[in-house]
């Protein structure tokens, strides 16, 4: 029995012979078992390129020069196997010299001490950190340089469904899956303290429990330096509940959007539906009053006028209410374009003209020579102006209504001012605060003389807000009122 051969081939530790440059000259079966490469793959390779992780290269170089000086060198280090996993090794190197004293070979014996290291680290951490970590609400898992778990608190044990002793030595990779599907190499590096990207807060992972279940977790990873080397501490929080709530919220949001859409469709349809019957009422009371079917008695005439008047009032109520509903639901979108404000003012005055003529009132425009063209929503501005002039006509018995358009001097955004001045009844001080409220009519009550929905100014103010404009007023009871719309140009 060749015991030399036996020992060399059967020894479980890795025994390697290296050239002075570090190339592998001989590779035992033990080396095969520890590192995974066979002698064909390993032969001729530079050992530090094959087995030593990048971050340990400098270290290795230092130990080599130490060996050349002292002849022997023993140390602990980290190696990467053929499969890519990291192991802790206990290295014992001896320099073999030729007869002339020069370095002939390096004999290197490398023992896999990964398990041993885990137990050593665990013992250290147990003593030092156990009590503290038991107090934490989250599951805490500490792993060492090779990515193996060296400590897990009871919260972590519960979270993952393992006993304490089962977790010890387990690679952290087995517990946490990154659902963003990183390639294997990146995942390998994830839980190694050497990896600069290892640490982080609020990272999303899935925890792989012993029973196969996966739960969503949030992980914060930090690096801890100890005398046994760097460690990673992962704080793991079960966010199953949070995800459930997020999902529920998301679904509720979708529901809300659908409901809103349904409401808008309803409003649009209702608008058409509500106005349709009024066509017939206003239309045929009109034809009757025109005496097209025949003559009318005085009473018939009077009563028909009452019907028509009510129908028209109802129509304006419906229009106002639907405008209101649209504005309140935030569904009014501005259609911004270049608008000639002078044309707009004149247009609105033309619309009001018949009404003013009925009361023998004059609505006088005052627009500048040069047209003011503004980026704004002409419908909204028209509506506000219509409301203001309507009010002025309504509450004025005699005299004039002045509608003035000016552009203000300004360095920044352009601003236009449209004001409506009347010589009407004015507004009492105590009524001034209620002026812009919905459904508030200044002379509300059974003796109300002035018709209206009570929504005009309320709507106008809402529209003004949408435009970024300001609607203000000044009034003296018995003398008249001045309403002013300060309109900025809409940004591009």
């Amino acid at each position, binding site marked *: 029995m060749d015991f030399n051969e036996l020992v060399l081939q059967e020894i479980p530790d890795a025994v390697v012979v290296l050239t002075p440059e570090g190339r592998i000259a001989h590779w035992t079966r033990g080396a095969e078992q520890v590192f995974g490469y066979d002698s064909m793959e390993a032969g001729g390779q530079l050992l530090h390129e094959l087995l030593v992780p990048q971050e340990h290269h400098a270290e290795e170089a230092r130990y080599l020069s130490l060996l050349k000086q002292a002849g022997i060198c023993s140390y602990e280090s980290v190696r990467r196997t053929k499969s890519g996993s990291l192991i802790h090794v206990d290295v014992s190197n001896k320099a073999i010299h030729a007869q002339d004293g020069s370095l002939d070979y390096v004999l290197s014996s490398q023992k896999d001490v990964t398990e041993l290291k885990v137990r050593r680290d665990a013992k250290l951490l147990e003593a030092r950190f156990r009590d503290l970590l038991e107090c934490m609400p989250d599951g805490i898992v500490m792993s060492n340089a090779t990515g193996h778990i060296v400590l897990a608190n009871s919260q972590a044990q519960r979270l993952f469904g393992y006993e304490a002793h089962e977790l010890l030595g387990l690679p952290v990779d087995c517990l946490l899956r990154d659902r963003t599907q990183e390639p294997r190499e990146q995942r390998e590096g994830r839980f190694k303290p050497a990896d600069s990207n290892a640490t982080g807060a609020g990272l999303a992972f899935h925890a792989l429990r012993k029973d196969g279940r996966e739960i969503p977790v949030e992980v914060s990873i930090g690096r801890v330096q100890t005398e046994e080397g760097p460690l990673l501490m992962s704080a793991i929080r079960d966010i199953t509940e949070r995800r459930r709530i997020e999902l529920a919220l998301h679904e509720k949001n979708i529901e809300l959007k659908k409901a809103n859409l349904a409401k808008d469709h309803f409003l649009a349809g209702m608008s058409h539906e509500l*106005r*349709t019957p009024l066509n017939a009422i206003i239309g045929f009371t009109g034809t009757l009053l025109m005496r097209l079917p025949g003559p009318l008695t005085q009473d018939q005439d009077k009563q028909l006028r009452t019907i028509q008047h009510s129908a028209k009032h109802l129509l304006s109520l419906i229009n106002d209410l639907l405008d209101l509903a649209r504005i309140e639901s935030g569904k009014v979108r501005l259609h911004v374009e270049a608008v000639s404000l002078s044309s707009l003012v004149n247009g609105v005055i033309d619309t009001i003209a018949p009404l003013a003529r009925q009361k023998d009132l004059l609505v006088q425009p005052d627009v500048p020579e040069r047209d003011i063209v503004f980026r704004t929503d002409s419908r909204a501005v028209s509506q506000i102006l219509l409301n203001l002039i309507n009010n002025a006509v309504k509450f004025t018995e005699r005299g004039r209504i002045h509608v003035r358009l000016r552009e203000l001097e300004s360095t920044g955004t352009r601003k236009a001012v449209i004001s409506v001045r009347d010589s009407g009844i004015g507004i009492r001080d105590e009524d001034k605060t209620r002026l812009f409220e919905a459904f508030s009519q200044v002379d509300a009550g059974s003796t109300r003389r002035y018709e209206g929905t009570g929504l005009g100014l309320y709507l106008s103010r809402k529209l003004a807000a949408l435009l970024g404009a300001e609607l203000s007023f000044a009034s003296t009871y018995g003398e008249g009122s001045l309403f002013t719309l300060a309109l900025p140009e809409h940004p591009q």
Partner: protein
Amino acid sequence: MNSRILVIEDNPANLELMVYLLDAYGYQTMTANDGLGGLALARRERPDLIICDVHLPGLNGYGMIAILKSEPALASIPVIAVTALAMVGDREKLLTAGFDGYISKPVEPERFVGVIEQFLRSSHAGASEPGRAPHFPQ
């Protein structure tokens, strides 16, 4: 000879109103309840003016005007839209689509015929005299 006017409207009360007013002023009216019926009638009868509700079931006003203006025999007939929308932007939309004018709903009976007559006078087909409304002592 009095002008012949085609009214296309699906709501019976609205249709009745417009026809009544036009008849009262001496115009000859023909009616349809939907776009397709209106088109058939227009092709067959070649009216002097078409009044068309924008909001029709099936082929709506916008569909109608596109077809009317694309057929050479019908393209010169003035087409007036009757519409419940009457907001600033909508007016442009109708005119761009090809309508020669529009009337907003609810129809104002006192003004309806006057507006229609404007379009009759301005079209080359409308060389007829405007009808006179019967007057009854008040």
